């Protein structure tokens, strides 16, 4: 499990680098973010929530049953939209209002 960073979208703001709890993301000479240690990702998705241009996506490793789907979040006020592009092309979206508590 790890993340993919889309170089073409990255604006080099460095927020993902700052927030990663493992300091695994670096900024290269072209001011683009890249994950230097992909095997060391914990899967916390902190970087994804920081990215202002939605350039970072999260996936499950094949060793944990991953099939190639990609997840990212987009923020809309108090709403976090969790968008999954499934491996079969389908898109699944789950909206969470940050002001609403979990029920379970």
């Amino acid at each position: 499990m790890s993340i993919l960073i889309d170089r073409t979208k990255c604006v080099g703001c460095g927020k993902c680098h700052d927030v990663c709890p493992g300091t695994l993301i670096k900024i290269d000479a072209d001011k683009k973010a890249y994950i230097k240690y992909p095997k060391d990702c914990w899967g916390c998705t902190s970087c994804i929530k920081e990215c202002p241009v939605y350039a970072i996506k999260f996936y499950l490793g094949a060793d944990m049953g991953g099939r190639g789907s990609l997840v990212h979040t987009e923020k809309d006020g108090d709403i976090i939209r969790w968008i999954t592009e499934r491996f079969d092309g389908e898109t699944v979206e789950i909206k969470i209002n940050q002001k609403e508590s979990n029920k379970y």
Partner: protein
Amino acid sequence: MKTERIRTDILIIGGGTAGCYAAMTIAEHSDAMVLICEKAHIKRSGCLAAGVNALNAYITEGRTPQDYVDYAKKDADGIVREDLLLTMSERLNSVTEKLEQLGLVILKDENGKYVTRGNRNLKINGENIKPILAAAVEKLPNVTVLNHVNITDFAVSENRIKGAFGIGIENDTFYIIEANAVIVATGGAAGLYKPNNPGFSRHKMWYPPFNTGAGYAMGIRAGAEMTTFEMRFIALRCKDTIAPTGTLAQGVGAKQINSLGEVYETKYGLTTSERVYGTVNENLEGRGPCYLRTESITEEQNESLMKAYLNMAPSQTLKWIESGKKPSEQNVEIEGTEPYIIGGHTASGYWVDTNRATTIKGLFAGGDVAGGCPQKYVTGALAEGEIAGFSAVEFIKQNNSEEIDEEAVRSHAEEIERFLGEDKSQFTTEQLEEAMQTVMDSYAGGIRTNYRFNEKQLDIADEKIVQLEKLSENLHADDFQELMYIYELRERLTVCRSVIAHLKARHETRWHSFAENLDYPEKDDVNWRKYVNSRLENGEIKIILRDLTEGGQTYEHFN
């Protein structure tokens, strides 16, 4: 290499749950200058990075702090410090209110009262719990946060702490930090044992893989007394994603079933260790895999579970989405994790008094590094941060800061230069880490042996860990991040040796799986209702057995 020397009143090592709350407490009750050194960034560091979906330690209406003490004591089969548990439990509700004031969303009923889950839990939206805490800390005028600074060792002489040494992993700097008091809040230790997914997803573990036991290792090296490292923690988790199971068990009432569909949890008991042990045993007896029975939950429960997991362990929701089946359409397979050392769930850590003072003068501990006080969860870690904060404030009123000896500064700088110097090592840090995890897995009760071990195996484990410690002296780092990895490996090796010594010392099996000693497979209440403590003396781990502190007694350090 740059060198920076900083002087502060109180140094907090680790800006996680306990560390942040300690800083807030100090700022509210004194004018002391506080420095937090955080190896990542406090916004999302520590256990709360992805969020949490409930507050699991709260005194609900009609219950008392003593009830919480009794629950934790029962879960640990007696090996807890009641005085520590009580002082923590008395603060659980006030720290919860504080969190709500800071912006945490807690579910309330129409009368404005918290909605509880069971006897001890509150329902929240905890996705942003860490950014909330971090924002509160960043507003404090007397608190400075140094992000991306990894503390590697304490400066202690004659059992008095004077500060710490660290490395700035993004600015190639050697830090010498002098402080009158130090609060250690670095969390527990993950990555000692081979994890469930040892390959590409090796860091998809329950506990933060970045919590490498630094606080324990620094304390051990400095001669602090430690307790109960033999009570390892093994979490029962969703297979592959290593996501929490409590939300399924407590939230929607999912039972543990084997592959025959039989509910087996009642056969083994319901303590944390018994739930893991039962699962291991069902597999060994040919009735695996084991599951949490979610089939037939409602559509509304499906939807809520998918959201709840996104707020703390997004991998599990992705797993459901990828499989094309909702929780109601497939039971969730479960497995035990590799063992961790963590004083927030079990009782491993610094031997402290009720003020969270360690046996080193001027050093206080809170959260997962502090021992004797299990079942802390988030609010317990906050409570201990608060206590440690108050204690540090009191301490600096009566004590003056002392300068770090130049000899210690020199030897630390030389060590860093040696690791960054010419590459003469045949091995990499990664190789030695893998070797350590294999040794612990094979000989110190890892997943490979179904968490079981005997004395002979522990002796082999210790011998091999000592060899790896020796090899680690010659490792090479190309940059400061790799330097941090060398220090993290060495911390883990130090903790491994203490774990092995503690496992060997307790001649009984009090907790299945957590410490399953095949030489002593039974519980022995006559001889082993005791704490197993240890202290490093002249390079040797000395075991100290202490009588239980219970029934209203309070332990105090007399050294």
